[in-house]
């Protein structure tokens, strides 16, 4: 397992809330992210197509991929919790990823520039927000 594939084995847990989610039905953040779907029972491939493996070519891309996958896991939990607000497992899951997200975001912004304009590292000129790359420009 490469180090950009975060924690694909969910730890055993004790569910203390009203259960709507099945904890065995979720992919880890890397697999869920490349598939675009964190829920195993909902994942439906098209024909024989497989999701693309995302392989970072440098530290910056690796950090961004880590950030994107935990953010995606949080977002999927968010959408689920909108419908099932009493699911304690999913709330725990959201918070587990949120903790990782905060660390990764801070790490990324300190090294590679702002993802949000209100980050900690905007205290010098030139103003970092208007520097390349823009998201639509790709890495080529």
């Amino acid at each position: 397992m490469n180090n950009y594939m975060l924690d694909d084995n969910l730890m055993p847990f004790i569910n203390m809330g009203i259960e709507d989610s099945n904890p065995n039905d979720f992919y880890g953040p890397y697999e869920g992210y490349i598939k675009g779907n964190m829920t195993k029972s909902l994942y439906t491939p098209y024909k024989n197509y497989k999701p693309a493996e995302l392989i970072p070519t440098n530290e910056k891309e690796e950090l961004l991929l880590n950030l994107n996958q935990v953010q995606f896991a949080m977002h999927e939990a968010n959408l689920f919790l909108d419908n099932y607000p009493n699911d304690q497992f999913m709330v725990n899951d959201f918070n587990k990823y949120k903790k990782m997200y905060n660390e990764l975001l801070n790490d990324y912004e300190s090294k590679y520039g702002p993802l949000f304009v209100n980050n900690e590292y905007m205290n010098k000129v030139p103003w970092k927000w208007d520097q390349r790359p823009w998201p639509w420009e790709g890495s080529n």
Partner: protein
Amino acid sequence: MWVYQKKLQYPVNIKKKDLKFAKQLVTQYGGFAGELNAALRYLNQRYTMPDDRGKALLTDIGTEELAHVEIISSMLYQLLKDATVEELKANGLASHYAEHKKGLFPTDANGVPYTTAYFATTGDPLADLSEDMAAEEKARVVYQNLIDLTDDPDILAPLLWLRQREIVHFERFKELYDFYKEQGL
């Protein structure tokens, strides 16, 4: 309000220009099953959802659709950026060049500009959520048709990913629809 994040929800790195495909892909920007239509539909319908679940879900999915508009736009930008005027002409994009140069513009695959008449807001949660479920299915099919039209892995990766998001959103809308139905709304 909204806060911009200076990154894509899923990466787009297209190495080869493909003008013929760009002409088809634009429908997921400004066509009836496009991401812009999805974003506007959910963000308009959310105000009259009957409870907090509905208000939250339509806000959050509507917001994600804005990120999908950006993914499709990035694909279009990268597919067109190295094209010459001659290449645009040869690939049926002379009319696009006449009006927009290489700027992006939301139309369907036939060049018909985006219109809000592509979606409805009835103010009735069951009617609106039924439309939302149908919209996700239609977008899934259009992504499949687009996947059938290319073999470039750089294009296939985000299309497969976006198709899967339609499946997840359909399920979340259906869960909410079923919940409201049970509540006797």
